[in-house]
């Protein structure tokens, strides 16, 4: 089975809130925030790894990002994927979900026949949830989003459960297909030392726009139908009263406020 896992390298969410719009210049400052694997993509990779335990499988990691994103791809190889493809090119910068999905889809086509494409359902920075379904459309493949459980995975006819309004839906699908997964689907396993050593012999290939043979007006900012035209500061201020005094005094004051508000 040929599996592709799409992985995004995102700013570490634990420190990412330092990334703020500068109210004067109205742009994002350049900060050295380390890149890590988007947490939902860990679940996507784990889903692929669990299939690897049952069936003969090749797992390829696909990641579009700056050269530093290679560390994230390497980490995925250490977790058990077989090879990695890093799509990196200045031309890819500024891509919206559409251009991103298009570029990824082209890379999947170039890589060869695929049975399943796994994606995390959303990224921690951006969180549009669009990339999975758009990749599917560009590849002419069916997609199921928010998969929480793979019930049947033998052969080409799968059954999955996906989050839906009020509960979940049971979906029958025919491979090849794209699946986007939720956190519920599994518990990603930890990085192991032997995995890191095994990754030494695994290959990461870098492809740029030329290698993918995509015209310049279909990638990055140029290939994005949507553009950001303005960034503004937040505007939801209230007159705040910071409570004073000792811990106990503040507790008592707050109890009073809660009573007055009718909560007690």
């Amino acid at each position, binding site marked *: 089975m040929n599996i592709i896992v799409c992985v995004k390298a995102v700013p570490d*969410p*634990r420190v990412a*809130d330092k990334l*703020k*719009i500068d*109210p004067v210049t109205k742009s994002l400052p350049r900060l050295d925030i380390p890149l890590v694997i988007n947490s939902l993509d860990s679940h996507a990779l784990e889903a692929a790894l669990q299939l690897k335990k049952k069936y003969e499988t090749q797992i390829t990691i696909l990641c579009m990002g700056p050269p530093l994103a290679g560390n994230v791809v390497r980490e995925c190889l250490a977790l058990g994927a077989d090879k990695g493809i890093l799509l990196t090119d200045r031309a890819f910068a500024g891509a*919206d*979900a*559409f251009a991103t*999905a298009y570029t990824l889809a082209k890379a999947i086509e170039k890589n060869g026949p695929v049975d399943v494409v796994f994606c995390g359902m*959303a990224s*921690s920075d951006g969180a*549009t*949830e*669009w990339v999975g379904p*758009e990749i*599917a*459309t*560009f590849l002419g493949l*069916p*997609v199921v*989003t*928010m998969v929480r459980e793979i019930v049947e995975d033998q052969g080409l006819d799968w059954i999955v*459960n996906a989050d*839906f*309004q*009020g*509960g979940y*839906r049971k979906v*029958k*699908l*025919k491979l090849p297909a794209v699946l986007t997964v939720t*956190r519920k689907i599994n518990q990603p396993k930890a990085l192991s030392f032997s995995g890191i050593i095994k990754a030494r012999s695994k290959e990461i290939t870098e492809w740029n726009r030329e290698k993918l043979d995509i015209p310049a007006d279909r990638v990055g900012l140029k290939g994005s*139908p*949507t*553009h*950001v035209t303005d*960034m503004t*500061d*937040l505007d*939801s*201020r*209230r*007159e*705040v*009263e*910071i*409570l004073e005094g000792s*811990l*106990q005094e503040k*507790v*008592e004051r*707050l*109890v009073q*406020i809660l*009573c007055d*508000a*009718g*909560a*007690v």
Partner: protein
Amino acid sequence: MVDERISVFVIAEQSDGGIQAVSLQLIGKAHELADELDSKVGAILLGNKLSNVAQRLIEAGATQVFLGDADILAPYQAELYTEIIVKLVDEYRPEILLIGSTFMGRELAPLIAARLETGLTAHCIELEINPEGFLEQRIPAYGGMITIICPEKRPQMATVANGVFSKPLLDSSRTGEIISVDIPEDFPLRTLTLEIVKEEVSGISLESAPVIVAGGAGSGDQDGWQQIAELATILNAGFGSTRPAVDAGWAELETMIGQSGKMVNPELYVGIGISGELQHMVGIVGAKTMIAINNDTKAPIFEQVDYGIVEDCRVFVPALVKALKEKKPYLGRTTL
């Protein structure tokens, strides 16, 4: 047959014998936008047993409703819905296409956008027509708000969560047309929704809770989270969360309040260990009293609340719970 004046479309969604609240809200907003463009609103509704339901869309402001009412259209089938809608949109060439950020909408919208090769903005909290006639789509990001437009491709697509826009007044005197859509026969489906399984939801529904306690990254750990949960129980409050708390595994995604989560409008909101990121704060609409507990004086939340307490929540919350229990010993003991 096609009303040339329509340039704003809404993909509406049925729900248990009615229409999803967000669909009506979007028709209301679409009507506003269409007025700016000197045009009208069209709605697309696919599903089954819809005979009484389509009229509501007209009452909300749609001039034409494109109705697909057949057993094969329920439950939602991605490929079939995409096929029908893409055909309609190709025929109509609207300027704008809006979809609610429901489970269905979040899957359907990108499928349609990719087929039409157009732009799509997720979880907008503001939509406006700008002087050039473009749809300005606003979303919170990076501590502020960013405005997005789709200058060339059409339709300009956006998804919006339930509760962002208000429900329009239903005017039963409004007239409109209900048009049946062609449902392709024997359309090959590679994905088939077999059934929808309902699950019991425990706890107080966030959307209707008058008091909401929300916890964020500052809760520290599972123990800290439990303390906040206890506070929520004592106050009979809905217990919400932020994305970091969901990512840390303390809370379920369904409890996340914010731009890509739930929109809430409580009377009283207490944010604990929450820095005040816009993505979360935009989810709280029209709260009368807002309170924040956070140990960082510089946290942005302190500019967005009425009362602020600068303390480590892991020390403050247990003290608060203790004081509340002393004041009203029966607090939190009533089951719902």
